[in-house]
C-alpha cells in the first residue's frame, strides 16, 4: 500500500510545468492519506515486527494466487478489450476438475498403480502434475468453447454486448454448476493429492507437526505457499518468453495494437484470440488447482471473488500489461493482508478498491499501463 502512494508522487513535476492553480491541495490531500497510512502501519510493524513479516508473507500468498488469474484477464483484455467476467468461473471449473480427478479417479496416484515399484514421492509428483495438466486442458477447452460460442459472433457488435454475454456465461457456469447433478451447491472438502507441511522459523527452519503448537512469535509458512509462489513466478517468466520471443507472441502484440492491420500483415487474428483465451484459461486452471489445494474447500461460486480481485489487480497494474498484472496482484495481496492484520477484516475490499481508485487517479492507465494516446 505505501509503495503505490509513493510511486504516485512522480507526476508532480509534470503538472508543475504547466502550473495549474492550487494543484498542491490535491497532492497534499493524497500525501496526507498516504502519510497517515504509512505512519500507522509502520507503528504497528515496529511494535511487533514478526507479526508484520507474517502478514507480508500471507499477503504474498494471496498475491501470487491473484497473479495467476489476473494474467488471463489482462491478456484477453489486451487483445479483445473484453472484461471476461467468466474467467473466474473457468478458474472454478479447474478446481472442480482436479477434485474429481483426485477423489474419484485417484489420478494423482496413477504412476504407482502402473509401475508398482516406483518411489511414492516421485509417483505423487508425477501424478499431481498430471492432475494439473488435466485441469488446464479442461479449462482450455471450456474457454475456447466459450470464446467460439459466446464471444466470437459478437466481435463486430458493440463491446457492451460481449460484456453482457460474459456476465451471462459467468452466471450460467455458476448456477449450472450449482445444480445437484453437476457440482451441487455444496461446499465440498477438497482432498489434496499430497499432504500439507508447514514450517516455522526460529534459529533455523523446523516443521510444524499438525495438532501441536508452534512457538510464539515465529514466522510460519507451508509447502503450498512455496508451490504457489514458484508456479506464479514460472508462469510469469514463461508468458514473458511467449509474448516477447515467439512468433505467436509477436502476433498477439500486433493484434492487440491494431487488429485490422495485423490481419493485413497475414496474421490470423481469430486464431490469435483463441490462443489468448486458451493460454489465459490454462493458467486459470493451474490457479484453480493450487487454490483448491491451498484452501481445501470448493464450491460452485468459488471463482467470483478471486476473479474480481484478480481483475482489479490487473487494472491496478495497467490492464494489458503482463508484468503489470503480476505487480498489481502482489499489491492487492499486501493491501488485503495488511488491512486484515491492522485495520479491520470487513474493510479489506473497501480498502483494496480505494487503493485502486487512488492509483488510477494518479496514473490513469494503471502502474504499468501504456498511455492510451489518440486511439479512441
Amino acid at each position, binding site marked *: 500500500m505505501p509503495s503505490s502512494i509513493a510511486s504516485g508522487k512522480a507526476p508532480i513535476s509534470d*503538472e508543475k510545468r504547466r502550473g*495549474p*492553480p*492550487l*494543484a*498542491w*491541495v*490535491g497532492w*497534499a*490531500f*493524497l500525501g496526507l492519506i498516504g502519510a497517515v497510512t504509512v505512519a500507522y502501519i509502520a507503528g504497528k510493524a515496529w511494535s511487533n515486527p514478526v507479526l508484520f513479516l507474517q502478514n507480508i508473507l500471507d499477503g504474498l500468498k494471496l498475491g501470487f494466487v491473484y497473479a495467476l488469474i489476473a494474467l488471463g484477464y489482462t491478456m484477453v*483484455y489486451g487483445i479483445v*478489450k473484453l*472484461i471476461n467476467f467468466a474467467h473466474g468461473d473457468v478458474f472454478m471449473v479447474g478446481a472442480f476438475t482436479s477434485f474429481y480427478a483426485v477423489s474419484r479417479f485417484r489420478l494423482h496416484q496413477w504412476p504407482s498403480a502402473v509401475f508398482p515399484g516406483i518411489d511414492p514421492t516421485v509417483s505423487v509428483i508425477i501424478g499431481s502434475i498430471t492432475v494439473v495438466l488435466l485441469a488446464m486442458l479442461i479449462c482450455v477447452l471450456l474457454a475456447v468453447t466459450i470464446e467460439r460460442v*459466446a464471444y466470437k*459472433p*459478437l466481435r*463486430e*457488435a*458493440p*463491446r*457492451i*454486448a460481449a460484456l*453482457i*454475454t460474459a*456476465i*451471462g*456465461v*459467468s*452466471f*450460467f457456469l455458476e*448456477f*449450472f454448476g*450449482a*445444480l*445437484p447433478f453437476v457440482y451441487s451447491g455444496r461446499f465440498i472438502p477438497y482432498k489434496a493429492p499430497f499432504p500439507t507441511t508447514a514450517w516455522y522459523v526460529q534459529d533455523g527452519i523446523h516443521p510444524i507437526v499438525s495438532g501441536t503448537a508452534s512457538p510464539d512469535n515465529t514466522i510460519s509458512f507451508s509447502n503450498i505457499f512455496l508451490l504457489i509462489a514458484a508456479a506464479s513466478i514460472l508462469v510469469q517468466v514463461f508468458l514473458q518468453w511467449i509474448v516477447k520471443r515467439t512468433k505467436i507472441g509477436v502476433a498477439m502484440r500486433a493484434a492487440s495494437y491494431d487488429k485490422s492491420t495485423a490481419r493485413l500483415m497475414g496474421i490470423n487474428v481469430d486464431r490469435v484470440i483463441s490462443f489468448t483465451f486458451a493460454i489465459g484459461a490454462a493458467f486459470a486452471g493451474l490457479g484453480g488447482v493450487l487454490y483448491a489445494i491451498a484452501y481445501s474447500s470448493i464450491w460452485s461460486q468459488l471463482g*467470483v471473488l478471486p476473479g*474480481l480481485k484478480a*481483475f*482489479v489487480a490487473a*487494472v491496478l497494474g495497467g*490492464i494489458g500489461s503482463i508484468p503489470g498484472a503480476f505487480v498489481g496482484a502482489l499489491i492487492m495481496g499486501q493491501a488485503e493482508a495488511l488491512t486484515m492484520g491492522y485495520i*479491520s477484516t*470487513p*474493510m479489506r*475490499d*473497501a480498502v483494496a*478498491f*480505494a487503493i*485502486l*481508485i487512488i492509483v*488510477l*487517479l494518479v496514473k*490513469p*492507465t*494503471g502502474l504499468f499501463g501504456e498511455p*492510451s494516446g*489518440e*486511439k*479512441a
Partner: protein
Amino acid sequence: MELGYLAGSIVKLAALIGWIYGLLWGLGRPKAWQKAVTIILAFGVIQAAILAKFGDIALFSAFDQGLLIQACTMTMVALGLNLIYGFNGQFSLAQWGFYGIGAYCSADITYRWTSGDASGLLVAGLGTILGALALFLVGWLLKKKRGVPVLSAFTFYLIALVAAGFAAVKLGGALSPLLAPYFGSPEAPGVLASPLALQIVFFLSIIVAGAFAAEVSFIFGLPVLSLGSDYFGIATLGFAIIVKTLLVNSDTILPFPEMKGGRGMIGIPKLTNWIWVFAFLILVIVIIRNFVRSSTGRATLAVREDEIAARAMGIDVAKNKLMAFVVGSFVAGLGGAIYAHYIGFLAPGSFDFIQGYNPLIIVVFGGLGSMTGTIAASFGWIFFLEGFLRVLLGQLGSDAPSWRLVLYPIALLLLMLVRPQGLLGTVEWGFFKDGNNPIGRAREKLSAAVKLKGSGTKKEGE
C-alpha cells in the same frame, strides 16, 4: 389448470407492454389536456386491475403488484443508468450502490419518524440542503480560479461537504427535541404522528434520498469521471462494493444502530403503493426525457459520440459527464427509496455487486440509448424472471426451481447473440420520439451514420 396461470403471466406481461406503449403515446400528444387524460387513464387502468376481484382470485394479485412495483423501481434505476451509459457513454456499475444509498437513507428517515424522532428527516434534509449550498459555493469559487486540477477541486468539495454534514448533524440534533412534543404519546398521537404527516414525510424522504444519492455521486464522480471508460467502470464497481461493505458495518463503523448492519433493518413503514410508484415513475420519465431533450442533453450525446470533437465545440466535457452522472444517481436514489418502503426490510445482501449487474443487463437488453427499451426491458425482465419462470418451474417438479437462474443466463445469451443492439435498438415510442423536431432528425441521422461504421454506440479500442 395451472396452465391458466402460465398463460395469464404471459398475457399480463403483454398487457403491460401495451400499457407502456399507450402511456408513452398519450404523453407524446401535443396538448396538455391529452397528457393529463393519459396519465389519469394509465393510473386508473392498473388501479382498477388491482381492485378487481373475481371471487377468490384478484386480477392483479399481491404477487403481480409486487412485481409491478419492483418493475417500476427497476425502471427508475435503469433509466438513470441509461442516461449515464446509454446517452453519455460512461460505463457505470455504481448505480446499484446509489440505489442502496437511497433505500437506506429514506428508510432511516421514516423509521425514525415512526418512532417519534424527527432527527432523521431534519439531519438528512438539512444535510442535503446545506451540502448543495456548500457545493454551489465551492463551485462558484473554483470557477473564478480557472483550471484547478480535479484532485484539488475534489479536496475542496470534500471539505465543504464534510463541514456541511457536520453542521447539519449539530443543527438537526438541536432542532429535533423541539419537535418531539408534537409527536405525542402512543395513546394520544400528536399532529406529527398523524397518517397525513407520515405521507408527507415519506414524500420528503424520497426526495431527500434522491438528493443525498446525487450529492454522493457528485463527490465520487468528480475525480473518477476523469478516468477512461473501462477504468471508470472498475472504479464504479469498487464504489458499489464499498457501499455494500459500509452497509454491512452500518452499526459498527457507521453510527446507525437501527440499521443493524448485516442483520438487516426491520420496521420500515410499508408506505409504497401504486399512487406513489406511478407518480414517481412519471416524474422520472419526464426528468430523464427532458434532460435528454435539453441543450445539456444534446451535449451529453455529443460527449458520447466523440469527446474530442465535443470539447472542440466548446462543451465542458467534465461538467457534462458529471451532470449526467448526478442526474442518473438521483433517479437511482428515488428508486431505492420507493423499494425500501415497499419491502419494509433492508439487508445489505440485496445491494451486492452481483445484483448490480441487473440494471446494466436491462439497459443493454432494452437497447442502449433507448428509453422505451429500458422501460420495456425492466418490466419484461422482472415479469419474466420473477413471474413467468417461477410459475413455469413451480409446476415442473421439485428440482425445477433450481433451474431458474440457469435458464435466465441462457435466455440472456441467446438474446445477445440474436440482437446485440438490444431488444429495441434505438427505437423510441411516443413521448420519447424526437422525429418531429429538427435536432431529433439530425440525431437520428447521426446514429444511423455511426451504425454504418459498423461499431454501434461504442467504438473499439476506446
